[in-house]
C-alpha cells in the first residue's frame, strides 16, 4: 500500500471529508511525524509502535572507488519498535504472502510448517 492508496482508502471511509481534505490530512500527519524525528523527539502511538532515534558512533568508512579511508561523523538514524497490538496482529495473521514479497520460498515453507505444528 502506498501513500496514495492509503489516501484513497481513508477517503472512502470518511465520506464527510473531501478527497482533498483527506490528502492534506495524511500529508500533514506524515510531515508532523517526520518533523518530530528531525527535531530529535520520539513518537509514541499506542497499539502501533514507537519511533525514536538511535545514535551511530563515528567510524572510518571507505571510498569504494578509490579504496581510500574516509572518517564518517556520528549520526542519528530513525528506529521503529512495533507495539503490542501490531506485533500480535501481524504474527497471528494467516494471510498468504503477497507475490511481490521478497522472501525466499524456503523460509516461507519453514515458517508455515512451524506455525501449523
Amino acid at each position, binding site marked *: *500500500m502506498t*501513500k496514495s492508496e*492509503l489516501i484513497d482508502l*481513508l477517503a472512502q*471511509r*470518511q465520506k*464527510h*471529508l473531501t478527497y482533498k*481534505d483527506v490528502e*492534506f*490530512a495524511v*500529508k*500533514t*500527519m*506524515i510531515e*508532523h*511525524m*517526520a518533523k*518530530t*524525528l*528531525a*527535531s*530529535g*523527539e*520520539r*513518537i*509514541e*502511538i*499506542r*497499539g502501533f*509502535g*514507537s519511533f*525514536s*532515534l*538511535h*545514535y551511530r558512533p563515528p567510524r572510518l568508512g571507505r571510498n569504494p572507488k578509490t579504496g581510500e579511508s574516509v572518517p564518517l561523523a*556520528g*549520526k*542519528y*538514524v*530513525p528506529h*521503529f519498535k*512495533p507495539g503490542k497490538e*501490531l*506485533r500480535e*496482529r*501481524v*504474527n497471528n*495473521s494467516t*494471510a498468504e*504472502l*503477497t507475490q*511481490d*514479497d521478497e*522472501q525466499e520460498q524456503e*523460509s516461507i515453507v*519453514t*515458517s508455515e510448517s*512451524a*506455525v501449523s505444528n
Partner: protein
Amino acid sequence: MALTKADMAERLFQELGINKREAKEFVEMFFEEVRAALERGGQVKLSGFGNFNIRDKKQRPGRNPKTGEEIPITARRVVTFHPGQKLKARVEAYAGSSDKEQL
C-alpha cells in the same frame, strides 16, 4: 515529550478546520489502515517517511536470560521499518546535544 495521537489530532484540528472528534477519529483510522495492511501481509510505503515491511522469521535457538535455560524462539512474522532517504537526511542533520543525551 513524545509526539502522540492527541498531538496529531490537535494539528489536524488547527490546520484542517475539522472538529476535534473528527480529527481524533481520523488519526485513529490512519494507523488502523496501516496496521490492517500489514496484517494482510502487505508492504506499506509512505513516501517522505519510510517503508514498513513484513518478514517471516524462522525458528532459532534462544535462551532464558534469567535461568540460562535453552528455549527455541518460535517462527514468527514481524514488522520492520526502513526510513526513506528524505527522513534519514533530515534526522542525520539533527545536531542534538551532540553526544551526551540518549534519545
